[in-house]
């Protein structure tokens, strides 16, 4: 049976503002001290009123612009009404029919496949709910509610059903994650719930009679890891296929409504969550406590300056500068700071490939070993650039460069901050300067030959490899020498 997988994502992003969206409480993840970051407004006490945090709206607009969305010049707030203990007002302040942004797109690429544009239907701003905490001991203790999270600014990004595979859904979410971190609008900590994903999944099946039919749409809730998104969709695709084979039920059949399923990562299965009989009427209506937001041309212009180059555009530019697709991807996917670091080094030395080799190998390896981010890295981009410049200029060999790199890091570990000036000192101390002076080379070779009568004897008796010991001696005294050149000179001398 031939079929096409159709997926749309709904992603909730907690924005990195100092205070909550409608009150002055701190916006911090703080589950250990429940209900300490609260006030009458986010507790929903009688008489309290919301006031929009302009910074939350600004970050939302910057994000939407980076997602190529149009920003509405007029937007309003609506109440989404339902009862749940983590929702202290009995409604969530959200946006219904006039979201602040619509019609964008993001690029996603699965391994070596084509780069595909996934359209964004809309992005709107709302308040997060609190958290219900249930007694998990099974002893039937009271459930508790922590409202520290209530009122956290939450950006909901809804894609069109343009995604065609589980892997593409994962790639799309990863790309979004990367973009958000590039923009610095969210910490995107998935464990702490700063980035949460729901997936709408169904199949377009080509039946034997040649008809194309769609299976009922299922929303899988709370996919909070990249791997989870991919795995859940894979499993759900199989389940829908089996279900269709069994029942033939399709989208649009009487009684068929959107189903909500949860994801059980341990059992690797999705499970039914809410039946259609509980399908909610949220009774949305405009929140009379808040005034609509009118966005000016000046604001749009100002915000646009905060929109950085998207990761996909940056990868493309790096490739145009001569990097392989692989290197460009590795560098950009490390995050904005790393890509910026690389780019500063590349610009300074005028050799993108050399900079990329070092960034993707030596720098990344060191960061991994030391469990560091680029911000904590011992060598600033200036220092690395100064070092690589010596290589590019032919002052030192790549091998010497590695030695210097290691030496600088070691010194930094010992508390001596790495500085560009230290590079020349180290080259001097360690004699790493490439030796172009044949007089010095000859002297060193002659001295080495004089110290190694046995090797000379062996060579003359036809043992070519005996020359290795002599090369070693020369290289030890003249580190900047080119081993190939040394070898040639020795053979020349002994054969002469």
């Amino acid at each position, binding site marked *: 049976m031939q079929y096409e997988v159709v997926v749309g994502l709904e992603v909730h992003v907690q924005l990195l503002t100092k205070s909550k969206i409608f009150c002055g409480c701190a916006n911090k993840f703080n589950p250990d001290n429940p209900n300490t970051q609260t006030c009458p407004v986010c*507790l929903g006490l009688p*008489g309290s009123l919301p006031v929009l945090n302009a910074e939350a709206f600004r970050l939302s607009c910057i994000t939407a612009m980076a997602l190529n969305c149009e920003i509405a010049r007029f937007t309003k707030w609506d109440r989404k009404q339902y*009862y749940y203990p983590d929702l202290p007002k*009995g*409604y969530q302040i959200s946006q219904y029919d006039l979201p602040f942004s619509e019609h964008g797109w993001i690029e996603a690429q699965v391994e070596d496949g084509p780069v595909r544009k996934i359209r964004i239907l809309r992005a709107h701003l709302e308040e997060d709910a609190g958290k219900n905490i249930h007694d998990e001991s099974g002893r039937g203790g009271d459930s508790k509610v922590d409202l520290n999270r209530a009122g956290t600014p939450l950006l909901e990004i809804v894609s069109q059903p343009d995604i065609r595979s589980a892997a593409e859904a994962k790639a799309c979410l990863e790309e979004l994650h990367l973009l958000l971190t590039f923009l610095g609008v969210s910490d995107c900590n998935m464990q702490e719930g700063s980035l949460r994903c729901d997936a709408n999944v169904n199949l377009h099946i080509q039946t034997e009679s040649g008809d194309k039919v769609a299976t009922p749409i299922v929303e899988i809730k709370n996919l909070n890891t990249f791997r989870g998104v991919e795995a859940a969709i894979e499993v759900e695709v199989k389940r829908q296929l089996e279900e269709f084979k069994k029942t033939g039920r399709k989208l649009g059949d009487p009684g068929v409504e959107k189903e909500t399923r949860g994801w059980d990562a341990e059992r690797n299965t999705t499970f039914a969550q809410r039946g259609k009989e509980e399908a909610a009427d949220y009774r949305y209506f405009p929140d009379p*406590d808040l005034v609509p937001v009118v966005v000016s041309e000046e604001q749009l212009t100002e915000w646009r300056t905060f929109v950085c180059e998207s990761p996909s555009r940056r990868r493309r530019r790096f490739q145009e500068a001569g990097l392989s697709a692989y290197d460009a991807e590795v560098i950009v996917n490390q995050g904005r700071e790393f890509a910026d670091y690389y780019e500063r080094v590349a610009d300074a030395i005028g050799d993108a490939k050399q900079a990329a080799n070092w960034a993707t190998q030596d720098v990344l390896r060191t960061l991994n070993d030391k469990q560091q981010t680029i911000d904590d890295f011992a060598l600033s981009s200036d220092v690395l650039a100064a070092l690589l410049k010596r290589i590019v200029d032919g002052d030192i060999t790549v091998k010497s460069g590695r030695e210097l790199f290691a030496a600088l890091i070691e010194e930094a570990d010992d508390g001596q901050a790495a500085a560009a000036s230290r590079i020349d000192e180290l080259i001097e101390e360690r004699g790493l300067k490439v030796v172009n002076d044949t007089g010095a080379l000859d002297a060193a070779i002659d001295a080495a030959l004089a110290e190694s009568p046995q090797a000379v004897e062996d060579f003359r008796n036809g043992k070519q490899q005996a020359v290795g010991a002599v090369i070693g001696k020369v290289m030890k005294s003249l580190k900047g020498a080119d081993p190939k050149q040394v070898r040639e000179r020795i053979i020349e001398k002994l054969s002469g």
Partner: protein
Amino acid sequence: MDWIGRSVSEMASALQQGEVTAQALAEEHLSHIEACEPKVRSFLEVFREQALTAAEAVDRKRAAGEKLGPLAGVPVAIKDNICVKGEIASCSSKMLENFRSPYNSHVTERLLDAGAVLVGRTNMDEFAMGSSCESSAFFPTSNPWDLDRTPGGSSGGSAAAVAAGFAPIAIGSDTGGSIRQPASFCGVVGLKPTYGRVSRFGLIAFASSLDQIGPIATDVCGAALTLDAIAGHDGRDSTSAKEPVPSFSDALDQPLAGLRVGVVAEHDNDGLDDEVRQAVAKSVDAYRKLGAEIVNIDLPNAQYGVAVYYVLAPSEASSNLARYDGVHYGYRAEAENGPHSMIEMYEHSRGQGFGDEVKRRIMLGTYALSSGVYAAYYKKALEVRRLIRDDFTKAFESVDFVLSPTSPTPPFKIGEMIDNPLALYLNDLFTIGANLAGLPAISLPCGKTSSGLPIGVQLIAPAFEEARLLRASRMLEQEIGWDGELAGCVSQLAGD
């Protein structure tokens, strides 16, 4: 009884001149309350100790020569839907019977800054839903002029307290006439300011787009002095206006020249009580005598006001009252047979915590916002609301004020309307328009029925024209000569 029933300005100047101390004034009022409150039942709680402490502080500051606010030492009663830090704010509902507010409303802060001495929280219709104080979950309040009759509502406790001489000022809130109608019933002055003129922060919401806090006072000057204290922008209420705030009391005694007073022919319909008609006609004559031009105007959509109001107000209320769910604060039903489920807890808490009128309106509003009928009710009502507003805008091109009865009837008997909610709703006919259009409106005593019940006349002004509205009111007050009538009510009450 030196000071009971006297005006705010008399008390304030006597306090400033040292003719009376704040403590003496507070004690006199408290003992008058003690003697007469059992007949009127205007208070849910008298702040005896707090009032004496506050009064003592005022006297101490005055003795020390500290700067004092314009209401320093003046007793003020406050409606039970306005939050006072540390005090209960129950909205006359079982739901909030034990809810103690941890914060002050904006108005409370302003009153305390002005030096007001809060003497108690006043009874009201439950959650301000009603026109007679009979929907209070605790007890009905009596009209001081005739104890068998209602003081009106929903700010009935506040109006009755002023008429009874328990305080020269009381704070009320007005959603569809809840300040003006009880003021009219109790022979006192009640002002509903322009929507946004007084911050709603800390006012327990009934219908957010219509609610407005305002003063009830013995005379126009008292209303002006109170508005001076409570008006002005507050960043904690997004709908609070940034309009400049003039002094409302300064120019109060300067008559306005060239007044054009609008009267509406349709207002004179079958539902209008004869004695009310005659009293209001006298007010029109009085203005004519004062040199005003009387202009017949048309408010073609005013007839839909009650219908529009009873869609919009319950819709907003159904949402505003969703937070009273028994989870976080307020009334929670006890489980009857073993632990109840979350849904049962919600149902029982709300079922037992709210009275019939509140439930009726929650159901009306929930229905009007439901997805199938939203366009036919809520959206349509919003459209007609705009037409009603436009009618006023047009009318104010040719007149300065619109004059009408405040209520179509004099105060009715307690219990008389209790089984006829629709008739009670129609009692709001003249007052609702100002709420729907967001306009300032005042009710002034303008005469009495043959049996001695007070009758009120209403003036509606363009937005933010409270200063002119109060001046025009002062002109009428002087012309009619209501002075002394209130003293009659107070002494009759004390003598009974």
